């Protein structure tokens, strides 16, 4: 276990950032007087996206936010496995029969998801859909599938059955009945795309949140060093487990407390281990900090499935990532947190991702 560093991302950040901040303060004070704050929310991907931004003109900020929401809607229309008309659904229907041509960015996202799968040896897997259905987590009533059924379903699960042809930009499934489900990565990706739009329009102080589970902090609020984010307690919604500070960083949370079912005294989480086909046990919540929300989103699920010890080894593959794992302790409604982080940090010193005591 890590010897309790308070700073989740490299301690290196710190001083230079504070000096820069102090140096800029007087000038910022004048500018801030003219700043306006704009906050808007939008339903997409089965959750609520929120964008808050600071700038000079309210109308311009609203236009930029709307453009970002349009982009998120378009990603939702493309990547939803709930929508039968989406490109992803078309792939799911056709790819077992023939190679299917895929839109370049979606192709790149699927390729990226496969890399997470390979690096985690299947702890992250976008083919987990049939398993979710078997356990009743997709529009169904939660249940424990019989052993025989689970074995049958497992034959249709596994990233190794996905074949990507980079040259042709096509996808093909090696087994019939395989289904892609981008639920573990799409919301983070959408947050990144929204941030790209904000940046491209010159917005440098904003926060983008997808249902509070993936957040990107762009710059900092006026007069602040970073954005302040409360991490909820795994047992109590309104209670704060930890307070973190973010600047030019993303954070994603995976937890077993929002969706689960209890049968014969046993609690089953909706987060399934694709390797065993069964719900993950022994982890309450993971929080991952990464420069891009796509990475923090995918890794929060991956580390949830792998657990703290094995996650630590995998972190060597990813620079600039920090991890908090919350595990239950024998005392009722209590937990312990385990921290881990990348061995290498390459980001500019202004970035902030740290725990507040």
């Amino acid at each position, binding site marked *: 276990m890590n010897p309790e560093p308070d700073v989740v991302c490299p301690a290196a950040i710190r001083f230079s950032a504070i000096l820069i901040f102090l140096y800029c303060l007087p000038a910022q004070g004048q500018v801030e007087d003219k700043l306006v704050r704009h906050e808007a929310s939008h339903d997409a991907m*089965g959750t609520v996206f929120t964008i808050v931004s600071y700038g000079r003109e309210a109308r311009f900020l*609203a236009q930029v936010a709307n453009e970002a929401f349009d982009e998120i809607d378009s990603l939702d229309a493309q990547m939803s496995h709930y929508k039968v008309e989406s490109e992803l659904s078309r792939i799911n229907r056709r790819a077992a029969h023939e190679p299917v041509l895929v839109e370049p960015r979606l192709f790149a996202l699927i390729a990226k998801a496969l890399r997470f799968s390979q690096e985690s040896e299947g702890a992250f897997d976008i083919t987990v859909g049939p398993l979710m259905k078997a356990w009743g987590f997709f529009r169904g009533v939660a249940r424990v599938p019989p052993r025989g059924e689970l074995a049958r379903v497992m034959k249709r699960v596994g990233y190794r059955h996905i074949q990507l042809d980079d040259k042709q930009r096509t996808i093909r499934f090696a087994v019939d009945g395989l289904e892609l489900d981008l639920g573990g990565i799409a919301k983070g990706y959408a947050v990144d795309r929204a941030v790209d739009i904000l940046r491209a329009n010159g917005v440098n102080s904003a926060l983008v949140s997808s249902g509070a589970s993936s957040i990107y902090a762009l710059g900092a609020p006026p*007069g602040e060093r970073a954005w302040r984010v*409360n991490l909820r307690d795994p047992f109590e919604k309104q209670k704060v487990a930890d307070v973190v500070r973010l600047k030019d960083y993303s954070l994603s949370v995976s937890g077993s407390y929002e969706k689960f079912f209890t049968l014969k005294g046993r609690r089953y989480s909706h987060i399934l281990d694709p390797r065993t086909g069964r719900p993950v046990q022994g982890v309450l919540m993971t929080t991952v900090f990464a420069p891009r929300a796509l990475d923090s989103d995918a890794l929060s699920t991956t580390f949830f499935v792998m657990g703290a010890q094995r996650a630590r080894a995998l972190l060597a593959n990813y620079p600039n990532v920090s991890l908090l794992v919350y595990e239950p302790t024998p005392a009722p409604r209590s937990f312990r947190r385990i921290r881990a982080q990348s061995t290498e940090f390459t980001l500019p010193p202004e970035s902030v991702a740290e725990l507040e005591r």
Partner: protein
Amino acid sequence: MEHEQGVSRRDFLKTAAAAASALPLAGAPAIIADPGPTDAVRYGIIGTGTQGCTLLKFLTTIPEGRCLATCDIYPPNLKKGLETIGGNPDTYEDYRQLLDRKDIDAVLICTPLHLHAQMTVDALDAGKHVFIEKSMFFKEEEEKPIRQAAAAHAKQVLQIGLQRRSSVLYNIAMEMIRKGALGKITFVRAHWHRNSDWRRPVPDPKFERLLNWRMYREYSGGLMAELASHQIDVANWAIGAEPISVVGTGGIDYWKDGRETCDNVQAIFEYPGGQKLVFTSILSNGHHGFEEHIMGDQGTLEITIGKGLYFREKTAQTTAGSSAETWWAGATVSDEATQKGIPIFPETVSGDEGFVHREIRFAKRWLASLGIYDYEEPHDPWWSEMKNFFASIRESKPVVAPLEIGVADALAVIYGNRAIDTGQKVFWPKRAA
């Protein structure tokens, strides 16, 4: 944000609770003791067809009124009315004879639309308190004699049969609107869809026009008068004004059975602030039933008798300068975070409930019976409107749906039908201040 939604839900509940406790009459509990035969309002009912009998059924459980007489020109209806109310009221075929009775305090008029105005005027002139079913009158020129009779008999109660005005649910909805839950109202969408021919069975063809008067333009304003009138009134109530113009179209497109009134009606009413009401009514598809959707820049109410849902609009907020920024992060799953409608009566429990829930429900019901608390529609709004009518007579309580509300509603029906008939936009005439 999830956290923020929690706050808004609490705000909403506070608003709803405050609104409920502020209600005047409709939500009042039945605390008036049985007034006994001498204290009760002695009433007669004119028209004991389907609507008349609906009221009579509710009246059997309201001791503040006692039925002395019923009247209908169609003997089977007369019989049905008697069976419904029970007791031993006198029966008449000529409503004037009923009006001549000095021992009758009030009349309920539930006749075909073309008879409303004359009967209302006659009843007021005969010194009776009057409950007149909607729509209040049939022709534009009938407004004036009704106004004159009402002015000449100002001490007599005149109530229009717009029963949503007596609904606790609707009153809470309107209070929410007044308190800003919807923000600025811009649009009301109302639909009343059925999949039926909207006809009454006729035992002998000679009674066709008598029983199916709604099909004939000589007596009826069709779907606009019988159905839209309720929903126009809801829009007028929500917006706080009456329309200034209307466009519309309609046709006899599906039930080509000799009827003269449309089976497919679409109209757009415009209000002084630019708000629009879109009303649609069809008789060939009942999937959507009947509802009003009231929309403002801060929220939406989807409401109908017995059911009301509130949806908060996801609006952007802009403020000057910076603000203390604290955000929440936590795992969410699909659909959990998105907004579902918040019921107007949030405490209403349905389905499986345990002992504690049941006890809480009984406790709330008891509090409601003391007039302390409202958590559900305590009675059918039809029952409540009768109760309110008698309370206005016996206790001088304000009339729930008085003359001006009825006039505004009736004129909108008339102009709406005119727009459909002519294909022209119809403007409300300028009125003297």
